[in-house]
């Protein structure tokens, strides 16, 4: 499989995430689109790590090729921590303004 196929697939998923953030007004859907973008980047990192595993430098030691997958693992760890705090913030926002429309969050505007 060519690396370009994986680059284009991750790019399409990432762009769908960006469009979702720009188009939707629901705070939870925007947060889910951020998760989609994180996953697109994770997929690209794993594909690059498997591309690197084909090179001659990586064949000497397998640790060398699995570093990127450790990195993806830590991205998942940070994403899990981020989701718990972010959802708590959204719940607090819902409690204060009784809506999750991001257009109502304009108190800092003037």
């Amino acid at each position, binding site marked *: 499989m060519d690396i370009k196929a994986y680059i284009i697939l991750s790019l399409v998923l990432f762009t769908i995430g960006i469009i979702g953030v720009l188009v939707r007004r629901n705070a939870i859907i925007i947060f889910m689109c951020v998760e*989609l973008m994180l996953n697109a980047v994770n*997929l690209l990192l794993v594909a690059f790590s498997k591309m690197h595993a084909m090179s001659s430098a990586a064949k000497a030691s397998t640790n060398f090729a699995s570093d990127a997958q450790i990195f993806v693992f830590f991205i998942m760890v940070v994403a899990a921590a981020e989701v718990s705090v972010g*959802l708590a913030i959204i719940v607090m926002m819902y409690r204060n303004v009784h809506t999750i429309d991001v257009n109502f969050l304009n108190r800092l505007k003037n």
Partner: protein
Amino acid sequence: MSIIQIIFLLLSVMAVGSALMMITSKNPVNSVLWLIVVFFAISGHYILLNAQFLAIVNIIVYAGAIMVLFLFVVMLMNLNAETEPIKNRRLQLIGVTSGGALMLIIVSAISKIDVEQLVQINAGDSGLIKVLGMNLFKNYVLPFEISSVLFLSAMIGAVVIGKKEEIDIKK
């Protein structure tokens, strides 16, 4: 066309189609369920790349824990298609146009370069649990321990943000 390419195409169509359904469906509960389908498709890609550990962790952590948390919050707020915020058509058109333009520019730039790097499919042991575990607990043990502190602070932060401010009312 080999069987690997057919599986790759099927999983890609599944991921992109479900992602499109996620951002277009009116009901937030349907959006959450479509995002779970996207995560399963990405896990299928990981299995195709022989990154078995990440495939399992992706299903357990993302599709299992995080999306259940999302579903819990959506159902707690009783969101449905009627409570969906009213959208501005012009802003939607601008968003789709700018996002599509970004994608077109990067795709055209990538298709210009002529790298013929191949990705190791369905082979190699760099993604197995044994190799990853040895690497994680030998070379990356300090970040692993620090991430436990991160989880503790995230838990305390979620509790502090989420509780009602009764102390201020009493004063």
